[in-house]
């Protein structure tokens, strides 16, 4: 379990995160929602050792994050950042940083880009390359910062399937989303940040039954029945 208590991050006098407390359990997918600038990326960064000074605590199985050694941190958290780097490496070399990542990329049907250099990839291809790397690192927490932003429908489906697979293997997964409907289709629990503070932390069902999206984001709910008979919910302005 990852226990966050009283976590605050600030630059100068401005709080990026303020007094966040929540527990993340194994075998759960947590969706992270919030407007631009609400602190989603900062929260994901703080869980993945980006900040070495923070107030409050981040406990991985009872041990403070900043007390882990470099080697230990490497297997603590795996990250897919929102802004992807463009290192001058071949895809093969990049993916050699995690065992099985090359095979994972092939399983996405992208073996043709294996010998390309990362800067030459399209946005979606690069997203899938870094997803493969993040998926195949061994870690306790898997954090994906807006993994679907530059993906088409097919790769979104593959991404979500992989995220569910991690959960089914008993890992802790946190994923930030822009789109509430996508978040609800994947997540077990919903975390909403607003202005750096925790606005809501509840199960998917409670999020829906308590009409949290309507209250926090001022959205309206639309229910639909697909051609296959499945019911779904989308949120509209």
């Amino acid at each position, binding site marked *: 379990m990852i226990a966050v208590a009283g976590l605050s991050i600030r630059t100068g006098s401005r709080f990026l995160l303020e007094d966040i407390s929540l527990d993340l359990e194994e075998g759960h997918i947590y969706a992270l929602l919030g407007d631009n600038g609400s602190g989603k990326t900062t929260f994901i960064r703080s869980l993945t050792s980006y*900040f070495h000074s923070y107030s409050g605590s981040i406990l991985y199985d009872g041990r403070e994050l900043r007390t882990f050694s470099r080697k230990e941190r490497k297997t603590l958290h795996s990250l897919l*950042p929102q*802004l992807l*780097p463009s290192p001058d490496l071949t895809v093969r070399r990049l993916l050699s940083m995690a065992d099985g990542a090359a095979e994972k990329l092939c399983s996405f049907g992208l073996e043709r880009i294996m010998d390309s250099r990362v800067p030459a990839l399209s946005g979606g291809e690069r997203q899938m390359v870094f997803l493969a790397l993040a998926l195949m690192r061994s870690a306790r927490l898997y954090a994906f910062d807006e993994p679907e932003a530059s993906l088409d429908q097919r790769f979104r489906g593959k991404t979500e399937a992989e995220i569910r697979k991690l959960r089914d293997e008993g890992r802790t997964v946190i994923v930030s989303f822009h789109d509430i409907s996508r978040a609800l289709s994947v997540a077990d629990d919903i975390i909403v940040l607003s202005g750096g503070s925790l606005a809501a932390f509840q199960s998917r069902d409670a999020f829906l039954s308590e009409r949290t999206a309507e209250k926090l984001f001022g959205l309206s709910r639309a229910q639909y029945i697909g051609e296959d008979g499945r019911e779904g919910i989308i949120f509209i302005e």
Partner: protein
Amino acid sequence: MADCGIGRKAAVLAVLLVLAAAASLAYGSTDIDLASALRGEGPDGIILFSIRLPRTAAAVLSGMALAAAGVLIQTATGNDLASPNIIGMNSGAGFAVLLFLSFFPELFSLLPIAAFAGGIAAAAAVFLISSLTGGRTGRSSSLILAGIAVNALFNALISTLSSLDPDVMGSYSAFSIGGFASVRGSQLAVPGAIIIASSAAALLFSDVMDAIMLGDELASSFGYRPGHIRAMLAALAALLASSAVSFSGLLGFVGLVTPHIASHLSGGGSRRTLVLSLLLGPLLVLLSDLLARTAVRPSELPAGVFMAMLGVPFFIFLLIRRARR
């Protein structure tokens, strides 16, 4: 495609390097009889062992140092326009040399130490300013901005000194163009040892360099402290470049252009790029020095001149090629 044959590319470069070194020993501004020179006989032996051997060794060492420093700085800053000059090395070393020439002209033999100290001091100032302005993660742009500021300051000081004491300008101008005309073997021992040790250290850090290329967020998630790593890589670069500057003068351009050619050949990846740079840098410097010595025989031009003449067109070619890709 770019991945295969890296060993072959390195082997070809190594052979070319050996050939260039042999040529650098055999040819120069005067013709010597190699057979008697190799037996250590007469003036030809003196030219070979006391002049050309140190000169060749100096060219190889400075090529290694500046090329490796370029790779390290470009990785540390995440900016492929960065070179050892950017962290204040050249202007710091230049100012120290000028200061020394103005006040202690009789202690000419201590100039390399002054250059080394000046380069390290300028680099240290750049790191200090950058760490004060870069926030907790050590943003790479803060290093470049600090470098620009420190360079501007030292260049102003250089102009001041040279206006006040025009006599030193002659010696200074030879130093600032860079070359190996007056290198002696005894000058090379200490900087040579530093260069070889630092190059080996850089090779050991190549995995870390690959990780830092992934950006601060991913590098942190792999457990690294990006700010510390950037500072460490830049410090290693400062050590390498200052050592080279101490005997070769301001031969800066090789540090910018070699990493680009090497990464073009290597297909990316820090270790490969570094290995190829360590072969390519000396090759480029040796060829420039060889041309400098033989093009206008029996007179000589500084190696730095040919460095620019050889390197710039190729560099521009690479830039255009990359833009079209």
